[in-house]
């Protein structure tokens, strides 16, 4: 039997969460050690004997044995989880209790409870995202640093601090508590940021970025498995992630170059994800809450269902961006709106919309702000102005793929040898 992709990564989050309920959140490091140990054992044994019939159960059983050793050895010295404390002293109660707590029925909710614990509002959002990746997705510090273009030391510090804050509460977040709804917003936000880091982030490696998107989607789907968290907004978030992630396979062309939404080979979009996304979008349309995720999912659905770039309904998309701006005002949203305006009403209108962006100073370091100006100027036939903007963007480019993309743009400007009208193309920049 072949191990499925990311089996260890998926099991890591599940088992760490379950053990943390047993040991208490203050003993998170101990839970992580036990899981590490179980993985090392699996690595050694499986490579000689092959995969067991049910690898998830094998890993959980191995972790449970090891946990039992730890509990027996340290039950007098250490304080464990609140749910276990009454049962821990006697072997009569310890073993059945542990069997129960690590049984399939109980473990089902632990991943979600850990997710809610990580999205503790006292932590900065970037720390929440790092925690989710580390604890629930089994990413090492180095892997997180690579994904965020940060140093390992910085990430180590961020996670270390965040874990100290987590340790302040002994029990995992209680999904039956009244404040699920309030915390759920923070969970959405963290998963959304995780997804966006993959979709728009600075890391140059396509594979790393796609993994972040898929992890975010996996966790968002997990929210649908519990009645308290399977809300219309959760469906909207899943829809948005599916529909955007569907385009990932086409973002780099055969030559490994960054390809805009306009030039992408749409036959390479993931049809299965589009179908799933549209189904979630349909299920999101109930209840009274219209979230920003609903609106973004709707925008993504217009792209996903346009067979060709020039069949896109830009009028609808501009309207949705207007709505998104009232729900979540941000210069990046305004920039995307301006690009849609440029498609809908022409490049001069697009330029005017870009110039009208409030807080545009916050976009100064974002390479695709200058690139969007360049695109509009180029479409207006002002190649030299466009070239200036692309050069600015090039200075800010964050990785080789972006630099290559902008180099090609600058070459485009030169190819027209001056200010002439050129046909509209490659307008929407999707990074």
């Amino acid at each position, binding site marked *: 039997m*072949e*191990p499925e992709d*990311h*089996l*260890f*990564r998926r*099991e*890591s989050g599940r088992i760490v969460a379950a053990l943390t309920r047993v040991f208490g959140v203050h003993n998170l490091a101990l839970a992580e050690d036990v899981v*590490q140990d179980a*993985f*090392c054992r*699996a*690595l*050694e*044994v*499986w*490579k*000689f*004997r*092959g*995969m067991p019939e049910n690898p998830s159960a094998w890993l959980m059983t191995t972790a449970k044995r090891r946990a039992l050793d730890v509990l027996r050895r340290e039950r007098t010295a250490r304080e464990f989880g609140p749910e276990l404390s009454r049962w821990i002293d006697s072997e009569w109660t310890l073993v059945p209790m542990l069997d129960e707590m690590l049984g399939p029925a109980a473990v089902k909710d632990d991943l979600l409870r850990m997710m809610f614990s990580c999205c503790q509002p006292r932590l900065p959002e970037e720390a929440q995202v790092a925690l989710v990746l580390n604890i629930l*997705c*089994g*990413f*090492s510090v*180095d*892997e997180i640093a690579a994904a965020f273009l940060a140093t390992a030391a910085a990430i180590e510090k961020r996670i270390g601090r965040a874990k100290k804050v987590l340790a302040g509460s002994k029990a995992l977040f209680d999904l039956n508590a009244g404040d699920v709804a309030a915390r759920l917003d923070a969970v959405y936000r963290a998963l959304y940021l995780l997804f966006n880091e993959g979709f728009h982030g600075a890391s140059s490696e396509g594979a790393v970025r796609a993994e972040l998107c898929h992890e975010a989607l996996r966790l968002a789907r997990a929210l649908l498995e519990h009645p308290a968290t399977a809300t219309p907004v959760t469906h909207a978030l899943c829809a948005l992630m599916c529909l955007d992630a569907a385009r990932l396979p086409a973002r780099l062309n055969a030559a490994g170059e960054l390809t805009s939404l306009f030039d992408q080979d749409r036959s390479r979009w993931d049809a299965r994800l589009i179908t799933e996304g549209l189904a979630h979008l349909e299920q999101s349309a109930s209840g009274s809450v219209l979230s920003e995720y609903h609106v973004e999912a709707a925008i993504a659905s217009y792209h996903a269902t346009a067979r060709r770039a020039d069949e896109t309904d830009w009028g609808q998309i501009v309207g949705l961006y207007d709505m998104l701006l009232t729900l979540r005002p941000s210069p990046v949203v305004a920039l995307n709106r301006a690009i849609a305006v440029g498609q809908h009403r022409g490049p001069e209108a697009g330029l005017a919309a870009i110039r009208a962006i409030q807080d545009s100073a916050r976009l100064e370091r974002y390479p695709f702000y200058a690139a969007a100006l360049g695109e509009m100027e180029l479409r207006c036939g002002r190649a030299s102005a466009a070239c200036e903007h692309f050069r600015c963007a090039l200075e800010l480019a964050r990785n080789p793929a972006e630099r290559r993309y902008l180099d090609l743009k600058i070459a485009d400007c030169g190819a027209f040898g001056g200010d002439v009208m050129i046909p509209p193309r490659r307008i929407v920049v999707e990074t």
Partner: protein
Amino acid sequence: MSEFLFLYRSTIDSGRPSADESQKRMQAWMNWLKELGEKGHIKNTGQPLDVTGKVVRNHGKTITDGPFAEAKEVVLGYTLVEARDLAQAAELSKGCPILQGDGVVEVRPVMGM
């Protein structure tokens, strides 16, 4: 065909591989052993060995916990392979994933008649 024992030796890994790294390493081993098997070189896949243990010396008067902490390289497992000769056996060992790290494969002919 003659038999050879592959002894996999490595320092005890104190690093913490991530979930995906662990899985990749495992996959590499499984692929390698599978390939050897398909070419008909595997007599017995062998077993992994725990790094704990006892060392008995001095007519049994001295029993210590494994010398593994001080030992530079510990045997972590073994496989019994079949090959034409020692040269071919050594050639076969080259694909072993343990060589990607600081581990070694010791190739030892099983003594014949």
